[in-house]
């Protein structure tokens, strides 16, 4: 009996927050409350089975349902999923093996451009015959290609640089990402492969293979509402798969070898851990996750250009991993969710609020300072534009006060 009380409370909370989000479909706060239910799930003492049911209820039914009323909710959820997947990929390299990779976004870019080039008329520029864009069904095949491409580039980058010491490795990966971005940015001549800074569009979306089935059940949904839902479920599926794979890897021989290398490389190699091969494998796995997510990202965005793959993106993902706790899977998920919500909802919400204040032109009367017209608030002061400051603060404060992150990996708690 004592076990069912928290579960009921949780259910009540979920119901209350979703009703709130349903009644106020534009409210940022209401949706935040819905998202918070997932966090609560982790902490409330309830049987695992009930937790899974509740999580499924929120993820599979509530969020898509609310998303049909406010598309932005779904957009946020999709972004969260993408960053969770990226953070998990980086977590393998940074968290499990302890190699600081500052160029993670390069692999993301490689995946995104792989589908963007062949899933749009762009490839006609250098392959004659007018085969392109490829039909939507190729999307899933390219998803698999991208995993291979990511693993290949990860290994190719890793082979020469993995001998370097930690901080040099960080700078070389950063340099690699800049090289990839510069190449993508400039490869519109002599042969136009990436279309340079102008970017590529339109990119083909994944196939709606299930549409006949939906129609069979009498569900007529317009493509414009169907696609966001479809992407949401695709991202969710991908994130869940990645969570599953990383969990299995973490508890395997490979995962133990990775952690041994992180703790003491010399000792690990003395114990017979094939250090270089394990590091390469970590690089390849992380890179292939990022690359697969890139394909999905390209298909979702329809338009991509090099601007989406800057150094800041790498640091953002790094901030997520560090905030959550290096080497911890729940940590990476929490970090990615938290930082994305902070960026997309809290900072944007704050910007909108400030804009509203500015337009209202209300007078603010402060004691001693006199009155100040809010319409004089500088236009440049927009919290949404200061992501870097947020990332920077997260990194510094976490390193000084809590280097192990919010949800440190289990192992640390056991010892």
């Amino acid at each position, binding site marked *: 009996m004592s076990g069912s009380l928290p579960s009921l409370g949780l259910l009540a909370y979920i119901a209350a927050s979703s009703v709130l989000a349903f009644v106020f479909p534009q409210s940022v706060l209401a949706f935040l409350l819905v998202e918070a239910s997932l966090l609560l799930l982790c902490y409330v003492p309830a049987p695992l089975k009930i937790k899974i049911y509740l999580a499924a209820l929120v993820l599979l039914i509530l969020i898509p349902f609310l998303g049909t009323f406010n598309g932005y909710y779904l957009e946020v959820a999709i972004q969260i999923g993408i960053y969770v997947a990226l953070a998990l990929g980086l977590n393998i390299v940074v968290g499990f093996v*302890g190699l*600081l990779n*500052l160029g993670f976004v390069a692999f993301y870019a490689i995946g995104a451009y792989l589908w963007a080039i062949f899933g749009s008329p762009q490839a006609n520029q250098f392959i004659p015959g007018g085969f392109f864009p490829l039909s939507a069904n190729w999307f899933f095949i390219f998803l698999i290609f991208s995993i291979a491409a990511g693993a290949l580039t990860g290994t190719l980058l890793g082979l*020469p*640089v993995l001998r*370097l*010491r*930690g*901080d*040099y490795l*960080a*700078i*070389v990966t*950063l*340099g*690699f990402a*800049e*090289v990839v971005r*510069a*190449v993508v*940015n*400039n490869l519109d*001549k*002599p042969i136009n492969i990436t279309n340079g800074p102008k970017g590529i569009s339109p990119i083909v979306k994944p196939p709606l293979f299930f549409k006949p089935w939906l129609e069979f059940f009498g569900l007529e949904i317009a493509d414009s509402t169907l696609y966001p839902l479809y992407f949401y479920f695709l991202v969710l599926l991908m994130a869940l798969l990645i969570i599953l794979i990383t969990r299995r890897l973490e508890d395997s021989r490979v995962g133990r070898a990775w952690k041994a290398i992180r703790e*003491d*490389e*010399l000792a690990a190699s003395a114990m017979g851990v094939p250090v270089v091969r394990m590091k390469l494998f970590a690089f390849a796995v992380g890179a292939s996750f990022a690359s697969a997510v890139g394909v999905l990202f390209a298909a979702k965005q329809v338009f991509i250009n090099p601007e989406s793959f800057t*150094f*800041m993106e790498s*640091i953002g993902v*790094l*901030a997520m991993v*560090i905030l959550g706790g290096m080497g911890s899977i729940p940590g990476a998920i929490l970090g990615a969710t938290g930082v994305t919500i902070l960026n997309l909802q809290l900072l944007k919400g704050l910007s909108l609020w400030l804009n509203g204040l500015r337009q209202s032109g209300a007078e603010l009367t402060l004691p001693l300072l006199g009155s100040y017209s809010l319409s004089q608030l*500088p*236009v*440049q*002061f927009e919290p949404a534009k*200061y*992501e*870097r*400051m947020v*990332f*920077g*603060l*997260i*990194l*510094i404060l976490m*390193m*000084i006060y809590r*280097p192990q992150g919010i949800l440190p990996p289990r192992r640390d708690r056991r010892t």
Partner: protein
Amino acid sequence: MELALEILPQVLLEGLVLGFMYALIALGYTMVYGVLEFINFAHSEIFVLGAFVGVEVLFWLQDAGQLAVLHPAFVLSLVIAAGMLISGLAAMALERVAYRPLQSSPRLVALISAIGASFFLQDALRLFESLWRNTFYLNYPALDVLDQVLPLATNLVVPVKSLMVIATSLLSLGGLYYFVNRTRIGTAIRAVAQDPETASLMGIPVNRIIALTFFVGGAMGGLAGVLFGLHYSLVNPYSGFAPGLKAFTAAVLGGIGNIPGAMLGGMVLGLLEAFAASYLSILTDGAFGAEYKDVFAFLVLIMILIFRPRGLLGETVREGRA
């Protein structure tokens, strides 16, 4: 080929200017690496800060109506002194806030904190300038003296500002070399770089020397920032990233921790980059142009780290565990 030879002197000049700037910035990386063994990622923002201090001082003189009245040499010295002082102090403050609490942590922890500081400072500068001037892309006011040119030969036109950059850099690099190698404090810096523990046993106040190293490195970065602004006019809070990364490359190229190495590395990289910018398109018949010069610098970095991680003037780097 005709054309290639024709532009050679101009390319060399361009390379020298770039090279001195990289050398000045690289000193900051290399000195900090010498004493703390970590990459001060936020040094590129210290450099940009110098450029912003320079432009603010010039604006201040302009608003006071003094810019046209005062002797240009005095104006330049004032701007440079202000840039060096503020950048040096900022670097010291950075060390105190973001690095000193982490001295006993693994090196990667300090590096991550430095990256955070770099990002934070970029947006802090942007926020400050946005509130103060309502824009964060600033143009240096024109100084008549700097805009003159000396036509030395038909194919070599030397702008006064290039001469100014070269002369100032030579002077400060020489001064720094003297300071580090011939003075008591310089000896202390080298002692801390060699072995902090023994240095502290010899009565050297290690933390104060580290702070001082940050000040000197930061001041050099600030000087480079002012020169960068005077030479290229336009500055924004994010313009430090590429020069910073290249200067780091220069420091590694020369052998990190090695002060003459940083100077040499800066020159080599500056010249290489100028050559790449001018000759890539000539050599490849226009297929690849100057836009690949950044790629070129990073490829150089990757190559050195793979084949000669100790750099040109390679000291053996102490093998510590990261």
